[in-house]
Structures are given as C-alpha cells and as structure tokens.
C-alpha cells in the first residue's frame, strides 16, 4: 500500500456543490417573494408563463454559453448572430413567401457564422474573446446593413403558433427551451462531446496529447451553438412577428451571467447544466419582475447590476468558506 493519504476534502466538495447550486436557488425564492410582495400580479400563472416565454431565447442561448464557458471558448457573438440569422430568415421569407426556405436560410446563416468563428479560433489560433468580439461587431453590422435598419414583417401561422400558449399559459417555445436544456444537459454529461468539452476547458494541451482531435470538437461545438442560435432566433422572430436587426441586444451578456451566477467556473473545466438553469431562471425573474414594476430601463439596469453583483459575491464567498482560504 502507498503511504500517501488520499482522504482529503471529499466532503467539502459536496458541501460546496450543494451551496453553489442551491444557495442561488434560495436567493431565487427570496427574489420571487419580494417581487410578489411588490406586485401581486407577479406570481400569477399568466405572468409566469409570460416570463418564461420572454426569456426562452435566453434559456436556449445560455445552454450554448455553458458549453462555451466550460470549454474555455467564450462567445460574445450569439445575440448579433441571432439578429443576422433573423434577418436572413426575414429576407428569404419576404422574397419567396416560404417560411421553410426562410428557416433554412436563418439556420444556415447562424451555423455558418459560428463555424466561421470556430475556424478562426482553431486554424487561425486567435483568442476566442477577440474572434467573437469582432463577430459581435460585424454580424450586427451586417444585420443592420441588409435591412437598412428596418424590421422585416414575418407573419406566418406556423411561426406564430410557436409562442401561442397551448395549455396552462405554456407555449411550444417554453417546451422547446426545456427540451434544449435537457438535451444540453445530456450531451454535457453523457457524450464524448460533453466529456471533451470539460477536458478542453481543463487542459487543452493534455487533451490534444491524449489523442482527442480538439479542433474537430470545437467545430462541432460551435456548429451546435449555431443551431441553438437558430432556435432562439425562431422564438424571437415569432414573438416579435418580425425580424429586427436590433433584436436580442445584450442577450449574450445575460446568457454569460446566467452561466456564471449559477455557479459554473469562468475559468472552465467544470460546471453543469443544472447550475445554468438556476442562473438563467434568476436572470429571467429579474428581467420580468423589474420590468413589471414600471421602472425606467436605466433603473432596471441599476437594480439588475446590483443583484448580479450580489449573486456573484455570494458565489465567491460560499466557495471560499468551503474551500478554505488559499494563499
């Protein structure tokens, strides 16, 4: 037997996990009670349904952001890509009158742009932050250019049905978001792609050395993000009844914040989809609750910023408490 003791911090890890994921859940409940007290209409089935639907694109993008952050490939571009994909759908729909062709064009645009990002990261060796930041600029720019900064009306019964409640204020869009979450959680936990997502984020060189074609998996991951952006775009267009070049502005920040306040490490290599779900719910409740209090956008931003910072500090403190102070 080896003399090296292996009985260190098994339990604290679990405690930390518990605190990291359920601590925020507690905060979420407090927040919901607070909003209900301020505005009783908050805790009604109708409003909760609206809240979930408003934020369905956020839920979908947050799933992609979880993969991106765990694998250390931060993506700032999804909201801009969403707008561009929406514009592609709108233009094709306008020209052909076919929703199907429009959807194909929209998805193709989203996947193509994300793959373009991935190729620059993998082949060009450029930092993901820079690549996706540039994309944040140019994809939005293209979306605005193609439309002359005007929205394109997209009305189609099939698309409208996506955000029309079918029962209990629940629309297909909400179910879609839920499905995306479950699929994302499954892929992350049970498949090769998921395993390599963690491995790349933890130590990319070692992963490559172990014979994992990391470049290929990054391409797959970004393509998957493209599909998610496409889905979020469908919900957005359906909700607005139009393809707007300024759609989803700031969504990428909400998505990234959801992943992080949920308790996933920004430094990559660890995390899970359940944490992202709680984080995204927290942001959704904030967005909806603050919005219903009749405040100005500016005031909403202040409270939202403060709540996010509190949640982040809470995460940091709880982690420190359990891990013990490190010099």
């Amino acid at each position, binding site marked *: 037997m080896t003399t090296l003791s292996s009985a260190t911090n098994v339990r604290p890890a679990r405690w930390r996990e518990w605190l990291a994921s359920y601590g925020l859940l507690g905060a979420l409940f407090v927040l919901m009670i607070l909003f209900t007290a301020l505005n009783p209409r908050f805790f009604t089935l109708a409003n909760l349904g609206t809240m979930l639907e408003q934020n369905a694109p956020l839920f979908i993008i947050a799933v992609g952001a979880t993969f991106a952050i765990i694998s250390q490939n931060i993506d700032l571009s999804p909201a801009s890509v969403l707008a561009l994909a929406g514009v592609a759908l709108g233009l094709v729909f306008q020209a052909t009158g076919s929703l199907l062709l429009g959807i194909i064009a929209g998805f193709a645009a989203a996947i193509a742009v994300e793959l373009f990002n991935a190729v620059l990261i993998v082949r060009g060796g450029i930092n993901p932050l*820079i*690549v996706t930041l540039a994309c944040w600029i140019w994809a939005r720019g293209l979306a605005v250019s193609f439309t002359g900064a005007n929205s394109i009306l997209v009305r189609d019964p099939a698309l409208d049905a996506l955000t029309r409640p079918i029962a209990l204020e629940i629309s297909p869009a909400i179910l879609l978001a839920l499905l995306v979450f479950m699929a994302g959680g499954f892929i992350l936990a049970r498949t090769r792609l998921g395993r390599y997502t963690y491995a790349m984020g933890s130590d990319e060189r070692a992963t490559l050395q172990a014979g994992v074609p990391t470049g290929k998996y990054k391409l797959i991951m970004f393509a998957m993000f493209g599909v998610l952006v496409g889905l979020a775009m469908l919900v957005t267009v359906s909700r607005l009844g139009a393809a707007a070049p300024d759609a989803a502005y700031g969504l990428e920040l909400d998505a990234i914040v959801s992943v992080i306040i949920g308790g996933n490490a*920004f430094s990559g290599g660890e995390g899970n989809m359940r944490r992202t779900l709680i984080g995204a719910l927290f942001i959704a409740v904030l967005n909806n609750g603050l919005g219903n209090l009749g405040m100005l956008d500016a005031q909403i931003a202040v409270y939202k*910023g403060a709540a*996010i910072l509190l949640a982040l500090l809470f995460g940091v403190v709880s982690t420190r408490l359990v891990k013990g102070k490190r010099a």
Partner: protein
Amino acid sequence: MSQSSTIDTMTPTRLPGQVRAWASSNSALVAMLLLFAFFGLTSQTFLLPNNIFNIFRQMSVVAVLGIGMTLVILIGGIDLSVGSSLFMAAGISALLLRDGSTAPVAILVGLVAATLVGLLNGLLVEGAGISPVIATLGTLIGARGLALVLMDNAQIRVTDPFFDTIAVTRTPGIEALNIPGIPLIAIIVFVLYIITALLMRHTIYGRMVYAIGGNQTAARLCGIPVKRIKILTYTLCGFYAGIAGMLIAASTGVISPNLGSGSEFYTIAAVVLGGTRLTGGIGRVEKTIIGAFILFMTLNWMTIRRIPTEWQQAATGLLVLAAILIDRLAQRERAS
C-alpha cells in the same frame, strides 16, 4: 555550451533577418503605413491635412480609453466597463455644469466618479476574485444605469465655455500652405500617450505591470504587491475613461443615453491591433494609438468613399479579424 553555437549559426543571416524581425515586431506600424498609402492613393480628400486632423479627433476617445485598457490587458485582465465609466463621467460633469457648477469642479467630480468605477472593478477582480470579464460586465451594466438614473434618463447639453474652448481650439495653422491648426483634443491625446509611455518605461510601477502580466507567481515571489498593483491598474483605467468622458463631452456637446456604448469593443480592438497580447505581459502603450489610428483611418476612408455607415460597422469587425489573423500567421511563420 550550446549558447555560443546559437550565436554563431545566426550570424550569416543577420542583416535581412534584422529587417524582417523589425517588420514583424512592428507589424502594426507597417500595416498602418501600407493602409495609409493605399487610402492616400485611392482618395484625394483622404490626404488633406484637415481630414487627417479629423481622424485624430474622431479617434481621440477610443485612443484615450485604449491607454487604460492597454495597462489592464498587460496585467492579464480586461475591462469591459470603460464605455460606461466614460458615460458616467461625462453625464455627471454635464449635470453639474447644468446646475451651475464651475468647469473645474465638474471635471474633477466626473473624473473621480470614473476612477471609482475603476477602483470598484479592481476590488471585484482582485478582492473578491471574480473573473475580470464578468466583474466588468457587471459594472458595465450598473455604471451606465446609475448614471442614467442620475440624469433622469434624459439628454443633457453641455454648454460651458471651457468645454467649448477645448472642442474648438487649434494651434495656429499655416495659411499660405492651406494647412489648418492641429486640434487641441488631438494634442491632449498625444501628450497623454507620451506621458504614459514614459511612465511605463521608467517607473517601478511600469516594471511591475510587465512582471505581473508575464508571470504573476514569480512577481509575487519577488515581493511585488501583486494585488495592489492590479487594483491600481484597474483604477487608472477608470481614470483614463474619465478623461475620455471629458473629451467626448467637449466634442459632442450633448450627453445622450447611449453615448459611448460599444466603445469598449472598439477600444479592445485598438489595443489588440496595436499588438498587445490578451494573455498579458507583452505589448506597448504607444502602439495602441497606432491601432486606434488604423481603425479610424479606415472608417474615415469608408465615409469618404460613401460606404454606408451600417456597412462600415461590419467592415470594421472583419478588418480587426483580418489584421489579427495576419499578425498571428506572421508569428507562426517566424516560430517555425
């Protein structure tokens, strides 16, 4: 030892090697000169002194933001909140001026506000241990929101003789050659760059910044107060954002709710175009002004060539990518 043989084998190829080495370590400057020549050849108006001065003026805000951003990136961090700090500084100064403060007081309070945002960033990152992207994202949202609340969500005009003077003052031009004077704003930007570049080269602080960015652990083991220096750097970044806020207040004359939003991305682009590495420790402040010049000279040329503004945004994003890609490929070439 192998060291001596290293030098021997390098000797024969020294001269052309030196030229190539210079070009590849000053690729931003080379790119700037090439683009400048191209733009000059394809447009008569581009080369007019007045147009060049216009570029200087247009780039001033991003260039000043770029100073602080370069420092933060050198220590291995990033600050996404500069656009909001700038807005906050400009908004608070404008408010005070409207309510009858004198210009020095308004400027001082504005600068202090932005500096405090920088300090908060530093404390969040170094004190609380939140990653810089996330922490400064939080202050990006919060600082703009707070400023908007203070401003009651409305536009504020800046009508102060001092600010107006800053905006319009120029050095004497040369009438005979039809050369106008250099705008004061451009001179302020250049002076700030010269001062900061000298500080980085010759102060203990500058040395510590490079040491921390290059290897934080080693720096700490050498007794460098890593946390304090990093917090100071974020604070400085906020201070420069405050100065940028004063410049934008002077030059636009009106503080509208989305003033300066998105400028953080152009600023990071300028820093990276200047060759500073996002990984920290490598880069020069004075090269960021080259990056800013490349960006704004391109935008200017596109305007002259009547390319619609919307397309300019898309083209700018792609230009940044192309420039960085070329730089990376050149580095790879050199390494192999």
